[in-house]
């Protein structure tokens, strides 16, 4: 158990360190989410109301996550690291968990900028929305990293990621938007928890088959 946690921490630290040194992904995500919010301002005619803005916030979050996730396994692919990781004497699901933690850190950092920006540009964000964003991040990163590992094994590579990921992200959007706009967000937050638990379990259990023959 302790070894497993150690493996996961080492893998997550590797990704974070790589990002600190190369600064590939995070600046792109930040710029992307800021420009998306500006585009939404012009996409919403006046009088559309703040509810539409809250809905678009979720679109921005999912697409920003997608941008980060499409880069998730690029370094591994280019350097052939994935084969080495699979051969390493540790549980394969540790690769998924470590990568998910790193992706979660990137996404959370992007949102630390995005949410205040949203409340300046559009309307203020309440506690339920923030809770929903946190819960949704878990699901998005868990499923997204998994699907990203699938996509990287194919010929189409990054092209396939949105096609595989977006149908799986529809429930996250429903839970998130529901928690943001509905009067009683409890059931939507509960739904997000259910989604996270179910999909994290199935990702954790089946990741081995994605990276091995």
């Amino acid at each position: 158990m302790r070894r497993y946690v150690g493996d996961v921490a080492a893998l997550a630290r590797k990704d974070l360190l790589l990002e600190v040194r190369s600064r590939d992904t995070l600046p792109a995500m930040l710029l992307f989410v800021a420009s998306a919010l500006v585009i939404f301002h012009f996409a919403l005619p006046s009088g559309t109301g703040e509810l539409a803005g809250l809905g678009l916030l979720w679109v921005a979050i999912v697409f920003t996550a997608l941008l980060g996730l499409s880069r998730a396994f690029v370094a591994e692919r280019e350097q052939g690291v994935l084969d080495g990781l699979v051969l390493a004497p540790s549980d394969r699901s540790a690769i998924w968990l470590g990568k998910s933690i790193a992706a979660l850190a990137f996404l959370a950092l992007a949102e630390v900028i995005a949410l205040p920006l949203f409340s300046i540009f559009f309307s203020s964000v309440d506690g339920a929305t923030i809770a929903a964003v946190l819960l949704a991040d878990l699901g998005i990163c868990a499923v997204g990293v998994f699907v990203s590992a699938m996509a990287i094994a194919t010929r189409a590579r990054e092209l396939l990621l949105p096609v595989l990921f977006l149908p799986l992200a529809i429930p996250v959007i429903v839970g998130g938007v529901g928690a943001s706009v509905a009067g009683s967000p409890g059931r939507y937050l509960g739904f997000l928890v259910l989604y996270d638990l179910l999909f994290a379990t199935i990702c954790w259990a089946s990741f081995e088959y994605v990276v091995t023959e």
Partner: protein
Amino acid sequence: MVAFYAPLDRDGLNQKIFYIHVPIALTSYACFGWGAWKGLLHLWKRTPGADLESYVSIHLGVIFGAMTLITGSIWAKFRWGHWWLWSEKQLVLFLVLFLFYSAYFMLRFSVEPGQRQANLSAVYSLFGVVLIPISFLAIRLANQYIHPIAFTSHGPQMSGSQFFTFCVCLAAMLALFSALYRLELAGKRIDASLRELRELIG
């Protein structure tokens, strides 16, 4: 039987499509479930051929799913006057599933045939059976904030003879599925053995 036996209800003639639409939809669920079960068998027990069976089953499921969307859309047009209604939960669910399983083909055909392809397809089919109930729940939840007034009219309850017709139609549709399944599987198996032979010769 659909045309002559089942009594008309207050919707008139267009209610007949119910006997086609609902059995197709249920058969499509059965296909996806069967495909995921075969996928699980592949991953768990490494049953030879389970991957092909899973693929054929999901392939048919997508065809039945597309037919569900088309017949459902026709029904909606005649009953409510619109081709598409977001308040129809089942149809929206099928749209989500249709998108999801269409991506299955993209995934499957952009990987070289072999163990890798079989593994990825099987894992994806397992995601599908988790996604079905989650999406069902999500669409119910979404309707609460998109349409605050619940859509409660369920139409008339079925009478005995209507229910009987419905069951016969469902059985017929399942029989059609299993016939197509066997046919397609036989074809694919012949293809596979032919390819093996060619490789042996060439």
